[in-house]
């Protein structure tokens, strides 16, 4: 018996050595192997003065189907390499623990040359000198006429402390999605303002259907933003003072709390993530949800009810508004291939259309010319998003129009999550809003 065990252990050891050799074999492969770039790029037309350089590009997992997203990304990269001779190593970064990933990379100097990231990441890192200002890229884009095609709101957000810190590439907007079939079956019209929304939810709850769902994570927080901004409120005043506990916001939160008191809020949502709540919506478990119109577009034919996206609601005071953020691409100050990275940045930005049309990117483009593609022009949801949601939208620092370093901390306050959950759970929403205000003041030192 003992001998048998000894033999088994020896076999295990040997096996692990064998596996280890092969595993080690793969780690010793050269770094530039993730993309099969054409080495004879010098023969291609033009070529770049930076041909032969290798840049590291980290891209977040923006696609709802990550395999398709990466496939489209690699195609664009291959085309870029063929044209310029610059090699690009693409790494897909999952959203789990993204902040740790980037912070530890930057702190230890192992960050890439260029990356996408969260909406406020570039500004937080800028304040510490880790991000390369992109004023020259903006000037080049302006000279070539491309800059004029970018959404102004998106560009404004990129400006901090005298410089443009990043280039926007995808806008995230939020609208009120609804289950039209559910409304039709209950004789309810699509709401156009808050009172109609409340009435619709109450009528649905009389029919035993939950009207509205507020998820627990950032999607829940954005629901609060949506209604607060709709009402003319905002996280900050235009001149930079924290205004989380202002009257407009309190009214918005009170409205959502009222929905809860009337039993219209989907109870499980306080424990569900945004994606889980979206899946429940697509499964017909409740009627209304604040989320991206792209969800409606992507799933229109896939669900057994009719999805609708409502026109922006009118708040009690007649105001229109909503949440919008501009995801962007940043270049790192410690990069040794900044110019090559900038060339890639311009190319990537100009050629990204397939990421939306085929790569299942979850937002909408910031470049107007992309909307001429039938994928957008023939989609009533996406054209609505472009035409109506973006011009009224503000991001996590609204009513300020440009980001700043603390924006990341403000957006990430756990008190927002507690507020979103508390509304569904029937807690004192006004007090929770005050808690957000206190925490925001602490972040801003006010």
């Amino acid at each position, binding site marked *: 018996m*003992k001998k048998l*065990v000894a033999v088994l252990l020896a076999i295990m050891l040997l096996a692990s050595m064998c*596996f280890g050799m092969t*595993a080690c074999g793969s*780690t010793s492969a050269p770094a530039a192997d993730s993309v099969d770039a054409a080495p004879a790029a010098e023969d291609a037309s033009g070529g770049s003065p930076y041909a032969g350089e290798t840049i590291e590009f980290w891209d977040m*997992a923006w696609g709802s189907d990550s395999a398709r997203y990466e496939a489209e990304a690699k195609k664009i990269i291959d085309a870029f390499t063929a044209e310029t001779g610059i090699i690009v190593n693409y790494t*897909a970064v999952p959203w789990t623990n993204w902040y740790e990933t980037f912070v*530890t990379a930057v702190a230890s100097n192992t960050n890439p040359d260029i990356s996408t990231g969260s909406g406020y990441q570039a500004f937080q890192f800028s304040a510490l000198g880790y991000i390369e200002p992109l004023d020259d890229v903006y000037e080049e884009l302006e000279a070539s006429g491309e800059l004029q095609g970018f959404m102004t709101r998106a560009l404004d957000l990129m400006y901090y402390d005298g410089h443009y810190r990043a280039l926007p590439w995808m806008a995230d907007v939020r609208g009120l999605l609804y289950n039209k079939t559910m409304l039709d079956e209950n004789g309810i019209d699509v709401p156009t303002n808050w009172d109609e929304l409340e009435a619709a939810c109450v009528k649905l709850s009389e029919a035993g259907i939950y009207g509205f769902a507020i998820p627990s994570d950032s999607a829940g927080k954005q629901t609060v933003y949506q209604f607060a901004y709709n009402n003319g409120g905002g996280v900050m005043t235009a001149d930079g003072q924290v205004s989380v506990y202002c009257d407009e916001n309190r009214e918005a939160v009170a409205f959502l709390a009222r929905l809860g008191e009337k039993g219209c809020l989907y109870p499980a949502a306080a424990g569900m993530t945004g*994606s889980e709540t979206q899946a429940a919506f697509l499964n017909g478990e409740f009627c209304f949800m604040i989320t991206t119109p792209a969800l409606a577009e992507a799933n229109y034919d896939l669900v057994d009810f009719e999805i609708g996206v409502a026109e922006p609601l009118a708040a009690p005071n007649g105001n229109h508004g909503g949440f919008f953020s501009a995801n962007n691409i940043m270049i790192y100050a410690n990069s040794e291939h900044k110019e090559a990275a900038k060339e890639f940045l311009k190319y990537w930005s100009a050629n990204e259309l397939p990421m939306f049309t085929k790569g299942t990117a979850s937002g909408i483009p910031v470049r107007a010319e992309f909307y001429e593609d039938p994928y957008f022009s023939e989609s009533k949801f996406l054209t609505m998003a472009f035409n109506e949601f973006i011009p009224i939208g503000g991001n996590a620092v609204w009513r300020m129009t440009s980001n700043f370093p603390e924006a990341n901390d403000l957006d990430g306050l756990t008190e927002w999550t507690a507020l979103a959950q508390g509304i569904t759970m029937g807690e004192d929403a006004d007090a929770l809003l005050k808690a957000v205000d206190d925490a925001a003041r602490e972040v801003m030192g006010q």
Partner: protein
Amino acid sequence: MSGGVHVIHTKTRAKKIRRIAVFVLLLGFVFVLDFPIIFMVLNSLKPNDELLKTLTFLPDNWTFENYIAVFQKNNLMVYIKNSFFLTASSCLIAISASALAGYVLSRYRHGAIQTYGSLLLMLQIFPMILVLIPLFVFFTKLGMLDKHISVILLYTAICVPYSTCMFRAYFDSIGKSLEEAAWIDGCTKFQAFVRIVIPLTWPGFIAVTIYCIILCWNEFMMANLFLRKSELRTLPVVIRSFISSDSTNWAQMMATATIAFIPVFILFIFFQKYMIAGYTDGGTKE
């Protein structure tokens, strides 16, 4: 006399009934206990749309498509190899080092050595989450990022404190008399350790080894941070990465998860036979 035989018959039948009853009860208990896992395995045999739309227990359409997809599309063999190599190496080193240290802690009651024991216990208290950044910076300075050796060191360091404490406990529970006899007979301390102590505490060895194997095989946070290149990833990282995209392919994730837990399960079934009595025959009568 016939009354006595009759009594024996009913006794045997009663015993059989009792055995069957115990078996059924245990089976029921185990079913409830392992329900999440059974559910996971069944889910991996459903096509993904069925998983999302309906909530059935047994699959309506039994299929292996998830397993095929996961092996072909997602290149699962590489990740299995990675997990295997890391776990085997870390455990081997950790168990060897800990057994030696545990023995010393058990047999030498001097203050300085006991302080080391307390230190080991103390070290487990500091949560790994918060030491992540200094560790990451430290390893990067040594150029050890994206290399298996860094994770092996980390896993060994995680396993050692626990293993040492457990080994000390197991060694404590057997008396010194056999070793002392051996020393008198001319054995060195090391020989006595290997030839006498280890066989007596073999079940303990197995228990600690299994614990370390499970710990390393299932570890997520460090593997996620230190092995970022996709060809170096381990199974838990791969499983979790299924969730992070907007539309998770749950069925494939369940398939990957099932594949991830089977090797350890088989190992466990195999080794638990050696944990029963019979292996400790020859011990002293305490």
